[in-house]
């Protein structure tokens, strides 16, 4: 059934396995012991940051597929995206992997928009292995959206740190003992007139609160039904605004509310408001959350990935930042 962006998956496709790769700095993340691979070199021993970006994604896909004893040639679809212009890193990974590919852009919400599409293809019986995910590489993304890293520009405390990480999930038809995708909500773009790219958490918070509200209302669930409701990369300051906005909509805020970006680098003040980037939600959802589900700590979770849909040009022309949040619900039943 599809109604106003609300999707229910009757066949309950599974996230059979995941693959997560990350850069050297991400070793200090409290989630790092759950990542499949951490590189010692921020350029992954390639020539450029963008090549490293593509390599991380390739490796994440290979690792995820190898866990179900599959090769890239066995996979039916590759649905991935990133933040670099025209998503060239994803395009290069797709060339190497040679899996039928559609690049998808929802900024930092790509981890969930791709998972929803993979679940749809699986639900329709058209896919056995659909690889969904997203990645970001700090140096490549920062130089595009903010300042080149060697410029050393000062940042306010609301600024977030783009993570170097890639996360993918292999979506298959329902498989026992793995988390299944029960329903999803496609977000509507929300623009409340924020223009500061160094405070994206505040710009994205209304979109996250809106999608959360629509999901709970549309699928007739309560916030207390979930063991965890995790947003993507609102960061420390954006997360507070989001909780306030959700509270204003009558949603009860509990300890089960988490934000991947706020938690990613722990309490290190060097990272200001925390992590951001398409790889942030992808790497945490597909390691920490799926891991906790497999261990039985979480039975039912709601993942809301948030994305700021700006471009360097729209920022330079002083345009506002439209934001989006997509939600997917997973269960261990």
């Amino acid at each position, binding site marked *: 059934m599809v109604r106003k962006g609300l999707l229910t998956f009757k066949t309950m496709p599974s996230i059979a396995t995941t693959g997560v790769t990350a850069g050297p700095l991400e070793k200090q993340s409290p989630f790092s012991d759950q990542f499949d691979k951490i590189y010692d070199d921020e350029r992954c021993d390639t020539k450029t940051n963008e090549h490293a970006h593509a390599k991380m994604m390739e490796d994440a896909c290979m690792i995820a597929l190898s866990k179900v004893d599959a090769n890239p040639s066995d996979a039916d679809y590759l649905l991935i995206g990133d933040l670099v212009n025209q998503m060239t890193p994803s395009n290069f990974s797709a060339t190497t992997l040679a899996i039928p590919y559609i690049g998808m852009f929802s900024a930092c919400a790509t981890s969930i928009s791709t998972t929803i599409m993979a679940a749809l293809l699986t639900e329709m019986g058209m896919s056995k292995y659909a690889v969904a995910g997203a990645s970001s590489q700090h140096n490549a993304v920062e130089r595009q959206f903010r300042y080149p*890293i060697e410029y050393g*520009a000062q940042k306010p405390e609301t600024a977030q740190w783009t993570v170097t990480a890639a996360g993918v999930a292999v979506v298959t038809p329902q498989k026992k003992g793995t988390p299944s995708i029960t329903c999803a909500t496609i977000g509507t773009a929300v623009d409340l007139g924020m223009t500061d790219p160094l405070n994206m958490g505040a710009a994205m918070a209304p979109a996250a609160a809106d999608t959360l509200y629509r999901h709970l209302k549309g699928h007739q669930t309560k916030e207390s039904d979930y063991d965890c409701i995790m947003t993507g990369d609102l960061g420390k300051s954006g997360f507070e605004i989001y909780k306030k906005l959700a509270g204003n909509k009558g949603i009860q805020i509990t300890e089960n509310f988490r934000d991947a970006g706020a938690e990613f680098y722990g309490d290190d003040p060097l990272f200001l408001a925390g992590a951001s980037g398409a790889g942030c939600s992808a790497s945490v959802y597909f390691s920490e959350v799926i891991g906790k589900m497999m261990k039985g700590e979480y039975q039912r979770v709601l993942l809301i990935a948030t994305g700021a849909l700006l471009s360097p040009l729209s920022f330079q022309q002083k345009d506002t930042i439209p934001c989006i949040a997509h939600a997917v619900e997973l269960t261990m039943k």
Partner: protein
Amino acid sequence: MISIFITAFIVGGLICVIGQLLFDVAKLTPAHTLCILVVAGSILDGFGLYEPLIDFAGAGATVPITSFGNSLTHGAMAEAEKHGLIGVLTGMFEVTSSGISAAILFGFIASVFFKPKGKI
């Protein structure tokens, strides 16, 4: 002796406070902030106000980027007195040439020998 340290600290610090306010309150980019301070220094010297500030605060006025604007105007006006209007063009880089050349030279050396990395 000690008093020049204090005045340098206060005046230099105040110039930096203006820059920080341009960042945080006016939400300008680093490039805009830099340009505004250079132009401000240049205009102040045009009215003959920057030299007295240097006499008063020493390094507090010569170290911040406003001093670069001061030097541009200073050189231009000195040459203009000698050679007329064309002196404005030749004089602008008369005083500042050492700073500009140093920036180009050291930038070149750094780019030949080093590869940019993440901040940490």
